[in-house]
């Protein structure tokens, strides 16, 4: 997949397993918690 290749090429130092990088990309995207009080414009 394009994303995997891009990350594999730009990795400089340590060897990074492709699936870990994929996970990192996925993890950031799946869930985000926000506070019910964390929106500006309510009492």
């Amino acid at each position: 997949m394009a994303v995997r290749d891009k990350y594999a090429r730009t990795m400089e130092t340590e060897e990074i397993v492709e699936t870990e990088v994929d996970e990192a990309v996925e993890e950031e995207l799946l869930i985000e918690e926000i506070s019910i009080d964390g929106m500006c414009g309510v009492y």
Partner: protein
Amino acid sequence: MSAATLVEQLKRGLDAPICLTWELTYACNLQCVHCLSSSGRRDPAELSTAEAKQVLDELRDLQVFYINIGGGEPMVRRDFFEIVEYAIGNGIGVKFSTNGTYIDAANARRLAAMDYLDIQISLDGIDAATNDAVRGAGSYAAARRAMDHLAAADFGPFKISVVVTRHNVDQLDQFKELADSYGAQLRITRLRPSGRGADTWHQLHPTNAQQRQIYEWLLAKGDTVLTGDSFFHLNALGEPLPGLNMCGAGRVVCLIDPVGDVYACPFVIHDEFKAGSVRDVGGFAHVWKHSDLFIELRQPQSAGACASCGSYDACQGGCMAAKFFTGLPLDGPDPECVNGHADTALGSVRVDLTPRPSLDHSRPSRTLSLAKH
């Protein structure tokens, strides 16, 4: 969600608000000098009980999970409990904001028996001297009594909400201690020059040094103190504070006022920011989804005069209510810009051209005025 972050998605607006503020009445037994809704007298055109329930039916159908009820003083309405119970019965969680005057022992017990209900008690000083100077004689005692009644009734954690001013900014630690003593949550929010706040903002708003004090204090407190995401303009000072750090008005939140008018948020009760009315054909849902104002707010906003400032990504140009009611352009710096970028403009604002709140329900014989400190 590949390209856009969550915040970018939210800025485009959702099909329904995440939560919203609903001011139930303009009537209030107090006359706080900075009241964002200029409350005091009931408006003759306020929504009836039946109309209020229709709004709640709509919110239920839109799957709005949580509403923030306020006013004026919401408990002044004779149908207050009926409305709150109807909301909860329809799967809408409620937080109501109150000065506490009407939370006696019996009401405290009644409230404690209700599920999915949060209470927020307003307090602007750690003692009567500081608080009552802004909220009126006896208001500190009333708030503390309400807290005591809620504690005695085992209500559980309630919220204490403080509008931060020049005169209470040194009391933040004590506010936290007070909240801790009740097992309550402390909430501090930003003073906006809205409603009666337009008249007293210049004397009450924190100084630049105090803004830094607030920011550092909030950073140290992390998630233990709520802010309603109202201090994101301070993020230009460094690490961002917890919260979405974006203006939610017309995007994920809005205001329904006592006569059913829908505004972008409670701090812009002005025709410029009125989206429509729940009494219009199509009701609230139509206003939320199709009003010109909200569609415009959901467009990408330009940084305008802030484009050349490195802090814009952090502070988002601040609060449109703060800019609007101090006579500043909306596409420029916030009046409290921590980099001082609004100072010159503020100095040359034409007071006679500065927008005034569109509505004023203040009681004519207001005895409370801002004492000199």
